């Protein structure tokens, strides 16, 4: 075995299709993550992204294949893998702070009360919610709830952080603000993150690599796109980098035109692509000019 932090080998998921047959949602999923990497996975609905994430989290079982983290096979959920769900999954009878304390206490049972509280408050402050720590989730907006959920996940300092479309239920403005916060926290902590998203811009802003999934059934991780943009990144300036345009075009083209037919390499691993060095953008000219106007408009706004 190679020395990757996380190795996913030959994962597949088969469900009964309700008519006596079987339905293979995804098959032969292979990839590896390095320590400290931020990887997003994009694909159309129904390709099994969430199931893959749940298998990594240990909440679901794959039909075949295995996941090895730090040389140990992943079996069942564990504290070394933190999960942020799309619907926040905060415990509604606990205050924001107590939700974080819940996680911290589970992670370090031997810590004193003061230490747990101090640690939890620090992470709540990190997401800018120290003023709302005594409020219950029902008294928080969707964006604030997701911040608490993110703070809880980061506070337990897992080795691998799994984010299942964390901003999917948020409006665009709130989403942008929290993306900025996530960038900031990630630059500070350099957690290994595996995240599902539907948002191409979000994926480019956050990740080092983007996995592109072909459509289900029998979905595969077809390509692994390098996001060759310097850190630290910022939502306000990232699109000024010419590489950003190339990557964006590449991703949109894949999702619109090629996701039905794309295939990985012969050996099952995703094809590695780096659009930033690609002279030939796969997108034809008209789309290019359209995005350029968009870019100038945004630059003016900035």
């Amino acid at each position, binding site marked *: 075995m190679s020395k990757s932090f996380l190795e996913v080998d030959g994962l597949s998921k088969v469900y009964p299709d309700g008519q006596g047959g079987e339905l293979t949602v995804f098959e032969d999923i292979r990839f590896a993550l390095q320590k400290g990497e931020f990887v997003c996975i994009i694909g159309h609905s129904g390709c099994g992204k969430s199931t893959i994430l749940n298998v990594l*989290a240990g909440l679901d079982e794959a039909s075949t294949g295995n996941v090895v983290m730090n040389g140990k096979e992943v079996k069942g959920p564990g504290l070394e893998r*933190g999960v942020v*769900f799309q*619907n926040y999954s905060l*415990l509604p009878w606990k205050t924001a702070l107590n939700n974080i304390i*819940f996680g911290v206490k589970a*992670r370090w049972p031997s810590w004193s009360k003061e230490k747990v509280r101090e640690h939890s408050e620090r992470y709540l402050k990190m997401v800018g919610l120290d003023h709302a720590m005594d409020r*219950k*989730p*029902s008294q928080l907006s969707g964006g604030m709830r997701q911040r608490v959920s993110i703070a809880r996940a980061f506070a337990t300092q897992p080795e691998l952080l799994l984010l299942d479309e964390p901003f999917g239920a948020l409006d665009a403005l709130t989403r942008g603000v929290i993306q900025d916060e996530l960038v900031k926290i990630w630059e500070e902590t350099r957690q290994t993150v595996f995240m599902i998203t539907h948002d191409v811009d979000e994926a480019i802003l956050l990740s080092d690599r983007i996995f592109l999934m072909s459509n289900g059934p029998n979905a595969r991780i077809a390509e692994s796109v390098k996001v060759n943009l310097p850190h630290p990144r910022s939502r306000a300036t990232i699109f000024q980098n010419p590489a950003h345009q190339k990557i964006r075009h590449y991703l949109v083209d894949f999702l619109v035109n090629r996701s039905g037919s794309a295939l990985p390499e012969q050996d099952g691993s995703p094809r590695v692509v780096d659009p930033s060095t690609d002279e030939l953008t796969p997108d034809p000219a008209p789309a290019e000019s359209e995005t350029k106007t968009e870019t100038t408009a945004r630059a003016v706004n900035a």
Partner: protein
Amino acid sequence: MASLNVRATLLSVSFLILALGMWEMATQPPAAQEAVSEYELLMGGADQESRVPPPSAVIRVAWAELSNPFYDAGANDKGIGIQLAYSVYRVLTGYLAAMAIALPLGFLIGMSPLMYKALNPYIQVLRPISPLAWMPLALFIIQDSDASAIFVIFICSIWPMLLNTAFGVANVRQDWVNVARTHELNPIKTALTVILPAAAPTILTGMRISIGIAWLVIVAAEMLVGGTGIGYYVWNEWNNLDLASVIFSILMIGVVGMLLDLALGKAQKLVEYKE
């Protein structure tokens, strides 16, 4: 315009005055048409018919009883406070015993589909049995009338608690259970820190239904076993043909039942949460 509360109170009070007034009017003895004979005088007036006592008579009884609720002048003459205390004691004893069984068992049934399927037929057969139907069997086996009454309370209050606990536990949102799983909580900790608070509102609803049923049943049970308690008191006053006392004790049963329900309602508020 006065506030809604003030108007409602005014309306309530006027309904009360109206109802009491009509009751008082309807229960006056008719005026004698002719001179009362000596025989009639000996028999207590011209009116041979017994009738429901007027509210004024009930209020007099209430005043006398409530000004000294805890006197004890022998087996058949105890204050209303003592009688109610006996009943509340029986209800709470049977109720707490039912809780001790229903909550853990409900957890087990709620968490294990196997146990649910295995035990559900028995629950469905036992649940619709009138609690009083158990009385002869209880008297024969336990051989103690007081304990039998408590057993009847136990058996009638166990079902709503058991079913609501099982339902609440089985329907805890999978997301919250997943939170417990990803934080590696052991089963006991998961039950106590995630499932119990999540299911608590449903469990408390079952407990509130149970206390209501228990209070309904204790009156009937005490009429059967006799000796002490508010149910026995009602029946005893009926045997004494003291209808004013009967009406007064009916009202007291209502007041205590309301207080028990209020207490459980308060507890329910404590564990409620908004999603």
